[in-house]
């Protein structure tokens, strides 16, 4: 298994506060990594550093060997990124927005049209192609963001809460989509819905207060608590760390 994403000692400090504290892991092709943690644990910050949106204070991140700081454009070419909240330009039509993203990614003419059409088909957006994004429901907006991340069929996908705000049917569709793409890609999905980990992830990392507190398969993770429920494991892991990390953070 070759690692498509490598993260070594990644750290982000905001003033005296350490949001992400020396995180290291790598993700290979065929893996779906669930990135778990309470709100404010550093999930989005880690993903933003990986996408090259935030500068790490320390450490490095590589996508297919391209360092996200020294070679950001090459790294981003291999990456599909869905930012938290799936932001898109409200006044643009769905087709117009995807076409813009495809153009920035270097596609022109027929190829661009084909890429946009394929991404809309994958995410079920054909029916709203001409609608301005601002008129869409939350679930459709999220799918527009997802379509943008899938346009160029990237080997690495980083999705920050892809199912947040979706109804159960839409959640199921997104999970099916992730599972279908999984064999060919390295996928990192952040979430705080634990059933999702069971449903789509081959591996889960739990972070709390900026540190990795567990890195295992969902089944191994479940065995960490006598009840065998991911819920209880999650609570036990993240509470313990939050309690011990508090004095350290103040110092």
């Amino acid at each position: 298994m070759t690692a498509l994403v490598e993260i070594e000692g990644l750290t982000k400090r905001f003033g005296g506060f350490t949001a992400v504290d020396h995180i290291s892991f790598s993700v290979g092709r065929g893996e779906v990594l669930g990135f778990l943690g309470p709100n404010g644990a550093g999930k989005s910050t880690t993903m933003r550093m990986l996408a090259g949106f935030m500068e790490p204070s320390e450490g490095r991140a590589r996508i297919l060997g391209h360092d996200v700081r020294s070679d950001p454009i090459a790294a981003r070419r291999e990456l599909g990124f869905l930012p938290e909240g799936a932001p898109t330009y409200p006044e643009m039509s769905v087709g117009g927005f995807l076409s813009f993203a495809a153009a920035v990614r270097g596609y022109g003419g027929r190829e661009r049209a084909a890429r946009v059409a394929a991404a809309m088909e994958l995410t079920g957006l054909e029916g709203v192609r001409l609608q301005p994004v601002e008129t869409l429901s939350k679930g459709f907006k999220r799918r527009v963001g997802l379509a943008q991340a899938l346009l160029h069929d990237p080997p690495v996908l980083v999705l920050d809460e892809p199912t947040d705000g979706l109804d159960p049917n839409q959640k199921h569709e997104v999970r099916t989509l992730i599972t279908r793409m999984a064999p060919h890609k390295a996928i990192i999905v952040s979430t705080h819905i634990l059933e999702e980990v069971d449903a789509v992830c081959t591996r889960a990392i739990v972070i709390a207060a900026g540190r990795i507190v567990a890195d295992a398969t969902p089944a191994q993770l479940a065995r960490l608590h006598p009840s065998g429920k991911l819920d209880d494991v999650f609570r036990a892991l993240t509470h313990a760390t939050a309690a011990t990390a508090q004095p350290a953070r103040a110092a």
Partner: protein
Amino acid sequence: MRAVLIVARRELGAYVATPVAVVFIVIFLAIQGLLTFNLGGFFARNQADLVAFFDFIPWVFLLLIPAITMRLWAEERRLGTIEMLLTLPLTQAQAVLGKFLAAWAFCIAALALTFPFVITVNYLGAPDNGAILAGYLGAVLLAGAFLAIGGAISALTRNQVIAFVGAVAVCFLFAATSYPVVSAFLSSALPWLAVLARRISLVARFQGFVRGVIDPRDLLFFASFIGFWLYLNTLFVKARQTD
């Protein structure tokens, strides 16, 4: 350059998709007409030139151009789309340049729509059309300078009101120094600053163009002034990207 043009095209599309373009152009033309013909005494001057028209340009720009630039980056930040835009394979400098070019092209289009003024003076007399053309070139460069300032200020905040007021204030600083009241005060109170103020005054250089003089030093000044603010804009975007 390809990425720059793609960003510029999207940005221009956003002006057209919202009422911004129509409102801006209508108000710009209405104010400019009112000021030139009424306050500027266009007919009373009894001269076939556009001096009255160009005299008001800096002040109209001072109020309207920050209205264009205030949304450039502040809105991206507020909507969170900056995170999407800057994780596409393009550099911050390309995004800054694309947005600036779109705003500039838009201002040039608004200026082009003042062509009835040119027709009017040509109908009424025999103006120096060379000087008028030079005046338009000066106006385009002045617009570029104000846009570059406004864009950089917009990159500092997510609040469009702050972006607007900040841009008006900074543009005013570079506009006001060419006016006798200000320069007289500076010469008496702070002589060393007066020299500097005269050198960086955008309006004084613009007035040279209106007189029909295209001085290469002025062209160089505007080019480096715009370049400097675009560079600052890129730095601001990088530094405050994630706020």
